[in-house]
């Protein structure tokens, strides 16, 4: 009898282990490629703080020139150097990414923790507010804030950051509620630790790792959203050379000067893909127990 039963007991399958290893390998490739792309843009952006080939408002060049030794990426319709603008654009994109992720993290975590520890009706109020904010497309929310504050870099960062905060708040609330139900939190409470102390010492430390990947993904989303806003004329006004606005300006002269309509887009895509790959690779580093959702 036992002999016929035994084989049906599932042996530890080798397949999942192999696929996990493959996933890890793919992740480390992602991490490397992502870090390289992101690093490249970051270096370009940092260098632009100290040095650009030309001054931004230097209109001495010939108009709509193709790339040359003097103007590495050509010139725009006012004779300004495009490589200079691309470099400044990298700096702006990074500022938007970091700025809005910072706002999303601060506002989102605060709201999420508040919802997790507050009374029932406060939690309900915050949660339903978040429902609306999450259902609302980022770009419409951003347009509303730009309509209110006027088009500027700060408006764009604030708008995109607040739109992202809703998602972060929701994730924080879910994880924090789970952590608050843990025995060690009860133990801390009975030994006299206050609510703020528990939040800081136990909840925040457990919530934080689960937020790294979503925040990294928001970086890419923020860069894309800012480009769209700038393209629509609702981003940072000149002399800030956002890639989105460069593309908008290049659209009318796309046949005469195709490089101006191609290069900003390539850099934009490179940065977003770089950050996304980095986020995917970080998943393992940040939280070894998590499985990929995709």
């Amino acid at each position, binding site marked *: 009898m036992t002999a016929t039963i035994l084989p049906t007991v599932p042996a530890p399958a080798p397949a999942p282990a192999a696929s996990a290893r493959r996933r890890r390998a793919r992740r480390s490739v992602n991490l490397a490629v992502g870090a390289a792309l992101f690093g490249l843009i970051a270096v370009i952006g940092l260098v632009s703080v100290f040095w650009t080939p030309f001054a931004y408002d230097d209109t001495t060049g010939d108009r709509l020139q193709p790339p040359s030794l003097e103007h590495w990426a050509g010139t725009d319709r006012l004779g300004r150097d495009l490589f200079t603008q691309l470099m400044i654009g990298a700096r702006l994109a990074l500022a938007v990414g970091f700025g809005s992720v910072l706002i999303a993290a601060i506002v989102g975590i605060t709201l999420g923790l508040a919802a997790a520890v507050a009374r029932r009706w406060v939690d309900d109020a915050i949660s*339903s*507010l978040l*429902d*609306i904010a*999450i*259902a*609302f*497309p980022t*770009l*419409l929310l951003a*347009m*509303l*804030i*730009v*309509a*209110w504050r*006027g088009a500027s870099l700060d408006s764009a960062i604030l708008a995109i950051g607040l739109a992202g905060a809703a*998602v972060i708040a*929701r*994730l924080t609330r*879910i994880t924090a509620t789970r952590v608050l139900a843990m025995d060690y939190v009860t133990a801390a409470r009975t030994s006299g630790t206050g609510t703020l102390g528990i939040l800081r010492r136990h909840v925040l430390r457990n919530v934080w790792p689960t937020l790294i990947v979503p925040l990294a993904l928001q970086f*890419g989303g923020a860069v*894309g959203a800012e*480009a*769209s806003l700038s*393209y*629509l*004329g*609702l981003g940072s006004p000149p002399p800030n050379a956002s890639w*989105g606005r460069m*593309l*908008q300006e*290049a*659209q009318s002269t*796309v*046949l005469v000067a*195709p490089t101006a*309509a*191609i290069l900003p*887009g390539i850099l*934009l*895509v490179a940065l*977003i*893909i770089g950050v*996304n*790959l980095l986020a995917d690779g970080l998943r393992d580093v940040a939280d070894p127990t998590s499985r990929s*959702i*995709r």
Partner: protein
Amino acid sequence: MLLLAFALAVTILFVVLRVLGNPVFALISVGATDAEIAAAAARLGVDRPIHEQFFAYIGQLLSFDLGQSFTNHLNVGDEIVRRLNVTLPLTLLSFTLSVLIAVPVGFFAAWKSRTWYGTTFSAVSQLGGAIPVFWVGILLVAVLSLGWRLFPAGGFPRTDWEDPGAALYSLALPVITIAIVAGSDLARYVRSATLDILGQQYLRAARAAGQSFATALWRHGVRNGVVPLISILAIQLSTTFVGAVIIERVFALPGLGDMLLVGIKEQDFPSVQGVLLFSTALVLVLGFIADVLQRIIDPRLRDSLSGNRRTKALA
């Protein structure tokens, strides 16, 4: 819940837009006298106390009156309906096309995930998720319209839909643009939903019970897999709508997006408010419909948290 959300959105919109700046300045010319300014303010009704304006506004809304544009004095509601002639077909056609592309592509990518096809798909879909929709538009216009002269580069026939052929022709390239970007996003979700199903024990059980692969997939897989996809589809439909707003700018189409942008630039507060309210209502209603649909298809969800909320939190 739906009404509460909408009421909240109405209030927030009103408050935010009233701080937007003084719309009187859009009406008067440089060097206007104080009397002229006061007259303009009285005409717009912005000289009354803020709570009176608010209640007047709510009253208008309840009778489906979105007010009159500050700049061109057209009725905002009529204007929105007129502009939907462009935005609605654009959104629906793009959405349909993107689903038609995404479902087979995503399904095969999951089914053949171990082959070159699956690998290529992953790489391409990374690209699709990162490319801004307006850049795709610019490039397609450059190649297909200006280069090969296959499509018009922009604009919409003045005769509106009187000549359906011409109208469709001018919408063709915008639709393709949105469908490519939205489709590659959607295909990723379809792929992961399919991968989920293919790994399920119930599918293996059905196969073991003698059903063919296709039958098992149809009877057990599709119904399970489509539930999370519905909320994704609802979100995608709102994303497509917003994509339409951007792409209208690329192709100079006179739709809702154009109305919103011009409104923001000219501080035309009723127009901006009208378009944003309409969009909010649309997004909320879509989410609501998705929730209801999911509960109809999957009885397990009926007394649980909204499926829509969970999926979005995970995405």
